[in-house]
């Protein structure tokens, strides 16, 4: 695990931009104009990977994922998947932490792991000349992690320091409070990084159990991009992942039924600006209306500098720097989310405006002109962000995880193009629920009638 930079504040790093980039990670894709030639590679040992061969640069990028992330953390051990993600590259096989990190550094190999609610992922990037060594280090990391006590305590300390640094971060408080209100006892309410108590409670046995249960061939999803052929990749897959157990342990995440509709929760904090998170039930990724919802959300709050929320809250009134909405389709719980940061005196006004836009879109949906323009933007911009091998590899994994089909990238723009005004109206009427929005405000807001107030220190 690379050191986390909590304290760095180099002046050179301070570059202000006009707006945040908000990218809905659920909508993935590559250029429509360039039909990516995705090869389905099945190794001699039966391990599948999707490959985009690209010989432009002497670089190979690989991404992979095991379903079952932080949402499978045992109760009281929240943060387990995240802690494992920090430890797989901290010593494996015969190599202790320092030796392992030195091999990576000396050959300019990037290897990292991460946990999300629904999965455990890895990311490998290497120059071609170090390819075999890079995949061998990956093999060691996933099949023979050491979990040496000193390394575990070092990374645990790093995670704890990170948690402590974010305890009063208004973004974190807002997100966590929202998830606890909406998801209740469901595992999706859990913080991915855990809490000080739960991270302290994780044992070496817990770490090893996670690896034994989750890291297995049956569930493995792989995407590879770059300077490698299918014939070369096949044996490399076996060499890298062949020693993993055949089957992952089954797990069940129940479908989350969002609670707390209409609640307005104020978490009092002495900040000059209130951080607001809001949302309600959304739409699953495999719902046929997902694309209509995508277009509707783009008009409402998804478009970069052109959405209705941007126009009403920021452009016309200057009430916020950042205001947006997005679809958040987890595997077992789908939400329609949004956020805004507004000075305390104007929080009531901002929330009213947002609810008003929600209501307007529900009642009148959107115009034909808005529909056409949004579709044009979603279609035209689809390929732009995939200008590097890591992003394309991540896309290959996401498409497999969502089971969208190997032809998805070539079909995606047709799916957007097929959305009609009728589809959008139906989705707006079914899903948008201005009174049902759960709103969490972190700050000292004016003009807000709270259904629940959590005082400082509470």
């Amino acid at each position, binding site marked *: 695990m690379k050191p986390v930079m909590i304290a760095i504040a*180099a*002046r050179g790093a301070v570059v*202000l931009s006009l*707006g*945040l980039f908000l990218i809905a990670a659920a909508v993935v894709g590559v250029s429509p104009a360039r039909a990516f030639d995705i090869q389905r590679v099945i190794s001699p040992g039966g391990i599948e990977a999707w490959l985009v061969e690209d010989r432009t640069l002497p670089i190979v990028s690989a991404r992979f994922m095991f379903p079952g992330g932080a949402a499978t953390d045992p109760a009281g051990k929240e943060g387990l998947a995240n802690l494992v993600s920090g430890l797989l590259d901290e010593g494996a096989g015969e190599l202790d932490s320092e030796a392992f990190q030195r091999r990576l550094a000396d050959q300019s190999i990037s290897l990292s792991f991460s946990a999300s609610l629904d999965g455990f992922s890895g990311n490998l990037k290497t*120059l071609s000349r170090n390819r075999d060594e890079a995949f061998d280090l990956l093999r060691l990391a996933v099949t023979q992690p050491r979990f040496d006590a000193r390394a575990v305590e070092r990374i645990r300390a790093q995670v704890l320091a990170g948690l402590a640094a974010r305890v009063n971060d208004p*973004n974190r408080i807002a997100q966590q409070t929202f998830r606890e209100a909406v998801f209740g006892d469901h595992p999706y309410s859990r913080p991915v990084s855990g809490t000080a108590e739960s991270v302290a409670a994780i044992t070496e046995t817990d770490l090893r159990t996670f690896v034994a249960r989750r890291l297995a061939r049956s569930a493995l999803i792989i995407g590879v991009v770059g300077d490698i052929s299918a014939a070369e990749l096949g044996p490399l897959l076996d060499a890298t992942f062949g020693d993993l157990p055949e089957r992952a342990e089954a797990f069940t995440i129940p479908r989350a039924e969002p609670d707390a509709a209409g609640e307005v929760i104020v978490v009092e904090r002495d900040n000059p600006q209130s951080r607001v998170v809001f949302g309600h039930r959304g739409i699953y990724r495999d719902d046929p209306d997902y694309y209509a919802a995508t277009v509707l959300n783009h008009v409402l709050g998804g478009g970069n500098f052109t959405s209705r929320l941007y126009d009403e809250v920021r452009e016309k009134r200057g009430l916020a720097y950042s205001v947006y909405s997005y679809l*958040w389709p987890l595997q077992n719980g789908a939400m329609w989310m949004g956020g805004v940061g507004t000075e305390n005196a104007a929080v009531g006004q901002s929330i009213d405006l947002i609810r008003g836009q929600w209501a307007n879109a529900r009642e009148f949906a959107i115009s034909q002109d808005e529909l056409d323009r949004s579709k044009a933007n979603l279609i035209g911009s689809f390929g732009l962000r995939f200008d590097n091998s*890591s992003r394309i590899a991540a896309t290959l994994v996401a498409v497999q995880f969502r089971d969208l089909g190997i032809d998805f990238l070539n079909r995606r723009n047709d799916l957007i193009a097929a959305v009609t005004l009728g589809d959008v109206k139906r989705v707006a009427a079914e899903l948008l629920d201005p009174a049902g929005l759960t709103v969490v405000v972190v700050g000292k807001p004016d003009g807000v009638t709270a259904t629940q107030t959590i005082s400082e220190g509470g």
Partner: protein
Amino acid sequence: MILPFRLPAIRAMAMSLALLAPLAGAAQAQVFDPTTFVLDNGMEVVVIENHRAPVVSHMVWYKAGAADEPAGKSGIAHYLEHLMFKGTETRAPGEFSRIIADIGGRENAFTSQDYTGYFQTVAPQHLGLMMELEADRMTGLVLTDAIIEPERKVILEERRSRTDNNPRSLLSEQVAAATWLNHPYRLPIIGWAHEIEAITRADLERFYETWYAPNNAVLVVSGDVEPAAVRRLAEETYGKIPARTLPPRIRPVEPPQIAPREVVMRDTRVNQPSWSRRYLAPSYVAGDTEHAYALELLVEIFGGGATGRIYRSVVAEQALAASAGAWYSPGELDLTTFGLWFTPRPGVAIEAVRTAMDAQVATLLETGVTEDELSRAKQRLIDSAIFARDSVGGPARVFGAALTTGQTVADVEAWPDRIRAVTVDQVNAAARAVFDANRSTTGILLPAEGESRT
């Protein structure tokens, strides 16, 4: 600096980080192999061909940033950057962004101390339109009170989000103000709130008219394009704008620093203490510039990742810090800083970690770096130049930043060779030049006295 949101479904990409990486020196390569030319009006053009995907990144960088603002008016450069998205004499407010959205483009802009940049990422057939729009707002911006007043509120909200809501940012601002006695790098890019509130329309127009000119701009086009086509389009658009007489870019010079400075900030919102120290240091183009490349290697050897000396000793072996490292960004028009930082492990006093950091510095100054450390660090930096090519926007940002901070295309292209040429003696000389306590400023962030809120 903005922190990424924690929520997995969205990713807030901070331009700051995207820009830091190449500027930190780990990204330039001999292999970008750009085509460069200058329009008749003096506008520099850099074209980097990359035909992997039908994508083009179009950027215009102005050699004007926050450090070029008149005294007492902090925030003008950034405020103007926001206003550039409003209307011009030929385009209604909002039309610019609407057109880009309609063609499926992406756009944004950014302001630093030394430059202001605007960019769009579009399919290649729209490059001409981007140039037409960008050239239009280089001269025809229309500012009225109805336009600038709501945007002032937006910027004050931006300041609250970035700075006022975040004790680390507040300390960082105070530390910058202590680091520079006289140079405008002491001022926050976004501006002090009371000065943002007082900026007038005339201030903004004066800054725009002074600095926004083709002979003060760099056009960088990266992606699926042919240089000849870029030249033709650039001549038809930017080429039509007359050059202006530019004032010299002179900033107040820092007096010699003769004593260490320290800023300690306590805040009830802080639960995790942190420490950083920066030493005044040369950039590629200011101060004792012969040390710049050696310092890039020093920061890699001393503070690079999990194998650097600081991490190995203070974090791993002595188990005092949760994380620690160093930074150095030589891409500044004037002097820069070489920084050290750490976050103590829970229960460890700041003073204990600082002592260990000081000991590492002392050892470095006594015994120097080794040939082995140097050759490993060189390999990593040189390799990083290959990874830097795996992107359309990254190389464009490298050239934009370089050409607006006093470097040349040749400097960028020679970067791997210059890294390769650095010797052990040069790294040790650079370390001795930089690690002078009397030229340092330390920032310490602590919980409020007797308080640790959870």
